[in-house]
């Protein structure tokens, strides 16, 4: 069974219909402007555990929305509309 993404409009659809989008957060302790640019351009939280992320239903309703997913098990734990 592949990962199915709960689209608020279309319901559970295959992950292949979606584009994954990360919510970028530059940590507050990074204050130097160049460092912040570097962080924005390249660095990732790459968190293990429950993350809030954005998905774009590219082959469906073409809407962005947010869900919560556990990256260690690849299971969706909750949905939140943006």
């Amino acid at each position, binding site marked *: *069974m*592949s*990962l199915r993404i709960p689209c608020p409009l279309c319901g559970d659809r*295959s*992950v*292949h219909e*979606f*584009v*994954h989008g*990360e919510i970028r957060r530059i*940590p507050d302790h990074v204050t130097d402007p*160049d460092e912040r640019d*570097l*962080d924005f*351009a*390249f*660095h*990732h*939280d*790459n*968190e*293990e555990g429950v993350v809030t*992320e954005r998905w774009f239903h590219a082959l469906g309703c073409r809407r962005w929305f947010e869900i919560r*997913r556990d*990256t*260690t*098990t*690849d299971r969706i734990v909750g949905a939140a509309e943006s």
Partner: protein
Amino acid sequence: MNEFTERQMQLTWRAPKKSYDVVIVGAGGHGLATAYYLATRHGITNVGVFERGYIGGGNSGRNTTIIRANYGIPAAVRFYQRSVDLYRGLEQETDRWLMHQQKGILWMAHSEAAVRAERMRAKLNTEFGAETEFVGPRQVEELCPQLDMSGGGRWPVLGASYHPQGATARHDRVVWALAEGAMERGAHVHQNTPVEGLILDGERVAGVRTAAGDVAARAVVSAVGGHVSRIAAMAGLRLPIRTHRLQAFVTNHYRQQFGPIVASSELFFYASQTARGEMLLGAEIDPQPSFSYRSSHDFVQDVCRRALCLLPFMSNLRVLRQWTGVCDMSPDYSPIMGRTGVPGFFITTGWGTWGFKAIPAGGEQMAELIATGEIPELIAPFGLDRFARDRTMADRGSAGTH
């Protein structure tokens, strides 16, 4: 019992010491190769390798064991060619049978644009030391008669770049050969001993906290695959890494007749035959970042559909086993090796889907860096600081399917 398991039984396992010259986190291919080359090339044997699971149980045991050097940028071609050369001598050097088999790899083109790309790849590879030539459909058919040259009518094979030094080796034999080579010379490998933290002395990394107690070290090397962001965070570093799953599977066996490794960057899959006769198939990473080892049915379905366009004989085979590894993807699809900016802390990561082929060269170069303190020329372009210096090593085209 075969010679492989007999040798493992002769090994002596020791308790961790209070301090080592070098501590390596992760006993996969890259960590063990670093320990091996530190011992054999530089005489540094006061080395501890800490592994949370067992030797080669992470991505070193979850890949498709392809060895090749036909990359897309000069620095990468040179680096991977070094690895191909080291692999060819590794059986003799370690006095162990690694099931290393040179097969050649065919990278097929199904469109005029892809033909141009493969011609360019062949030229660039040859220029920088990796033997590759562009071959037409007739030669492709001779090298791999099982191919449907019409590609199911949709993906005709118009030519391929042929890299004769493409090879495969047995993954667990490779990691154990390196582990045994390092241990025989005095290095310690500690399995089931996770590193839980780094010991910081001011700015400097001065050791590791493990499940078996604190261990001091003059140099700490992270050769972690899959969870490297967590280790780096312990040293206060943020990495340009996202971790994705990569799946692969094998079929039941087919008579030993399938010669080369075949790959198609337009159909996004590659296939080779294992020593047992299974057809081994792999493709691209899963789209979402994930640390899960779960495999999915739609991956098999999708890859089979694409592979059958070129290899229709496989419709009679059955899928036997499927597995998943987690790949640390760098933004430019090139590895990250060298210093980190944190004194005493070295890193070898970003091995994405191209880690196995780089094991000997990655280990050799990291060992040289740690032993001499000088960044070897071969890996100088792959430092972590390249992102801040705007010197990324973009090479997605060569990594796409492997």
